[in-house]
C-alpha cells in the first residue's frame, strides 16, 4: 500500500487491475473464443483446398457474405478513430475515459475487413499481384491504398496517447518491463514532452478524419463505380460513411458496456457517457433513415424497369425479410429507445446498439446481394444461400476480434489514465476559462 502510494497508483488503481490479475472467467472466455476461431480456421482450410465452390456463391451472385463482412467490419472501424478524433477536436471533456476503447476497435477490426477480402479471393496466393501489376483504374486498388493509410494513421493515433500510460506501466507494473520500456519511448512526463505529445495527437486527430471518410467512400465506390442497377448511385459515398459511423458508435457502446461490467469501471464509464453516445447514435439513426429514404425514393420515382426489379425484390420479393429486418433493426427498434431520456440508459443503449449492429450487417447484405441476382441479360434464377463455411468464418472473425480486444485490455489500460488525470487536475479550470471567453460582459481582453 505504501509502495503504491509512492508511485501514485492508488488513485485509478482499478484501471491497472486487468493488467495485474487475470482471473478464471478470462481464460474461460478465451478458450471458447479460441475454439470458435479454430473451427473457422478449419472452415477456411476446407475452402482453400476445394475452392470457393464450398460457399453458396454462384453465377451471377459472385459476391456474398465475405464482401458484406468486408464492408461491415470496415464500417465498425469508423467507431474509434473518427469519434475519438472529433470529440478531441471539439474538446468534449467527457471523451477522456472512452477514447482509448474506441481507438482500439478501429485498429483491430480493420484486419478483419481486409481479411474478408483476402478470404474472398479465388487465388489468395496471388494477392501480391495487386502490388506487382497494380492497375490504378480499379476501385479495389483505391481501397487497398486508403485502407493501408488508414491502418497506419489510426495505429499511430492509438499509440500516441498510449505512451504516457505505457511509461506508467514501465515504472510500476513489474512484469514485461523490457516490453514497456521499449514502447514508452523514454517518456518521463516533462513539460516539453507533454507539449509535443499534445501537438502530435492534435495533428493526427485532424489527419485521421479525412482519411477515415475517404476509406468508406472508396469502399462504396467499389459498388458505385460499376453500372449495375442500385449500385451506380452518387449517394453511396456519404451513405456508406454515415452507415459506418452509425454501426461504429453502436460497436463502441457494446464494447464499453462489456468493459464496464467485466472490469468494474462503473466510476469511469458513467451513465452520462452512454447518454451522450446514445444521443449521437440517435442522430445517426435519423441520418441513416434520411439516406436510405433518399436512395430508395429516387429509384422508385425514376421507375427504370431494371432498377425496379431489384427495388421490388427488396421490398416485397425474395429479399424482403432481409430488407425489412434491416429497417426494423436499424430504425424501428433503436429510435424509440434512444429518443426518450428514460430509456436512454446504459442497458437501453446496449439493446439499441446490438440492434443497430445486426441491422447494419443486414444493410450491407441487402446492398451487395440483390443487385447481383438480376443481371441485364436474362439468367436462370439462382438462389444464394450462404453455407456453413461462410457463417463459420463470420463467427470466427467476430470471435477473433473479441479475443484481440480482450488481450489488449490485458496489456494496456483500456481507459486512458493520464488523460483522466489531466481532466481531474487541469480541465476544470480550463473549461471555466473557456466558458468565460464565450460570454459577453465578463471582461477578458
Amino acid at each position, binding site marked *: 500500500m505504501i509502495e503504491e502510494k509512492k508511485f501514485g497508483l492508488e488513485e485509478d488503481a482499478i484501471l491497472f487491475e486487468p493488467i495485474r490479475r487475470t482471473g478464471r472467467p478470462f481464460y474461460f472466455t478465451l478458450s471458447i473464443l479460441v475454439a470458435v476461431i479454430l473451427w473457422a480456421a478449419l472452415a477456411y482450410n476446407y475452402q482453400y483446398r476445394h475452392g470457393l465452390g464450398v460457399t453458396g456463391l454462384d453465377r451471377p451472385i459472385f459476391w456474398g457474405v465475405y464482401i458484406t463482412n468486408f464492408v461491415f467490419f470496415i464500417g465498425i472501424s469508423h467507431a474509434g478513430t473518427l469519434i475519438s478524433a472529433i470529440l478531441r477536436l471539439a474538446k468534449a471533456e467527457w471523451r477522456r475515459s472512452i477514447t482509448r476503447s474506441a481507438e482500439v476497435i478501429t485498429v483491430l477490426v480493420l484486419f478483419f475487413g481486409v481479411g474478408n477480402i483476402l478470404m474472398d479471393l*479465388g487465388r489468395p496466393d*496471388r494477392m501480391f499481384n495487386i502490388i506487382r501489376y497494380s*492497375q490504378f483504374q480499379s476501385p479495389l486498388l483505391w481501397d487497398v491504398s486508403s485502407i493501408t493509410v488508414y491502418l497506419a494513421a489510426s495505429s499511430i493515433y492509438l499509440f500516441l496517447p498510449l505512451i504516457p500510460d505505457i511509461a506508467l506501466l514501465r515504472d510500476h507494473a513489474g512484469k514485461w518491463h523490457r516490453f514497456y520500456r521499449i514502447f514508452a519511448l523514454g517518456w518521463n512526463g516533462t513539460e516539453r514532452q507533454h507539449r509535443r505529445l499534445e501537438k502530435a495527437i492534435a495533428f493526427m486527430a485532424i489527419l485521421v478524419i479525412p482519411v477515415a471518410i475517404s476509406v468508406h467512400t472508396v469502399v462504396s465506390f467499389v459498388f458505385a463505380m460499376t453500372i449495375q442497377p442500385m449500385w451506380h448511385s452518387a449517394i453511396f459515398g456519404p451513405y456508406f460513411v454515415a452507415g459506418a459511423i452509425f454501426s461504429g458508435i453502436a460497436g463502441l457502446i457494446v464494447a464499453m458496456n462489456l468493459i464496464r461490467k467485466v472490469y468494474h469501471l462503473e466510476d469511469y464509464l458513467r451513465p452520462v457517457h452512454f447518454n451522450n453516445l446514445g444521443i449521437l447514435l440517435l442522430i445517426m439513426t435519423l441520418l441513416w433513415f434520411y439516406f436510405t429514404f433518399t436512395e430508395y425514393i429516387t429509384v422508385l420515382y425514376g421507375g427504370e424497369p431494371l432498377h425496379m426489379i431489384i427495388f421490388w425484390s427488396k421490398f416485397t420479393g425474395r429479399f424482403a425479410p432481409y430488407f425489412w429486418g434491416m429497417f426494423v433493426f436499424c430504425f424501428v427498434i433503436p429510435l424509440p429507445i434512444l429518443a426518450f431520456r428514460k430509456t436512454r440508459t446504459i442497458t437501453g443503449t446496449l439493446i439499441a446498439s446490438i440492434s443497430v449492429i445486426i441491422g447494419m450487417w443486414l444493410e450491407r447484405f441487402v446492398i451487395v446481394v440483390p443487385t447481383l441476382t438480376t443481371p441485364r441479360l*436474362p439468367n*436462370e434464377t*439462382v438462389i444464394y444461400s450462404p453455407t456453413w463455411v461462410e457463417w463459420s468464418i463470420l463467427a470466427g472473425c467476430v470471435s477473433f476480434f473479441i479475443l484481440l480486444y480482450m488481450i489488449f485490455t490485458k496489456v494496456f489500460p483500456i481507459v486512458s489514465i493520464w488523460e483522466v488525470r489531466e481532466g481531474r487536475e487541469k480541465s476544470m479550470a480550463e473549461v471555466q476559462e473557456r466558458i468565460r471567453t464565450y460570454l459577453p460582459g465578463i471582461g477578458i481582453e
Partner: protein
Amino acid sequence: MVIDLDRCSGCAACVVACQAENNAPIIGPEESAKGRTIHWIELIPYIEGEYPHIKARLLPRPCMHCDHPPCTKVCPVYATYINEEGLVAQINHRCIGCRYCTTACPYTVKYFNWYEPRWPKEMKGSLNRDVSIRTKGVVEKCTFCHHRLLRARERAKAEGRELLPEDYVPACVQACPSGAMFFGDLNDPFSTVSRLSRERRAFRLMEELGTEPKVIYLSEGM
C-alpha cells in the same frame, strides 16, 4: 463478329464447339443447378413482346469484346485488358479471383472456377492442347479463340504469305451449321462483317451503356 438471328436455328452447335475447343470443364448436374456451368458462349432465352404478340427467342451470346469494356477498368491486376488486336483478353495465370470483373460486366460473360476443373477420364485425352487449362479460383471467358489467331499467324509466316481473313475463325463460327455467324475485320470496310454491320437489321446489345460491343446482331424478321 456478326450473328444473324434470322438464320440462327438455336441448335447450340456453337456452344458445344466452344466447350470442346476451349477445354471448358464438365461440372455435373448438381453444380449446374447452382448456376456454376461454364460456357463461354451461351444461348440466352428471352421473351419478346407481351401477350398476345409474344415470341420466345434465343440469342447466342459470346463475349462482346467491347471497345469500352467495364470489366477491364475494374481489374486490379491487369488480368483482363484490351490487347493489340482489340480483343478483351484474360490472363488466367495472373487473375487473383476477386470477381470484380464478373460483377461489373453488364453481359455477364465472365465465369469463375468454383472448383478445380474436372473432366471424365475418357475425355482427358481429347483436350485441346492449344488452350491452357485454368486452375480453381480464376475467372475465364470467351477469347474469340485467340489461340487460333496465333496458330494462323504462324502458319502464314511459315508459308511466307500475308494472313488472310479466312485463316482465322473462332470455333463457334466454324461450327455454325446454318451459317448464321460471321467473323472478320470490322475495320476493313470491304469485309463481310463490315458490310453486314451496316445493314438496317444490325444492332448491338445494350448500346445505350456505351460499351461499344464488337459483336453485332442482325435482328430477326417479324
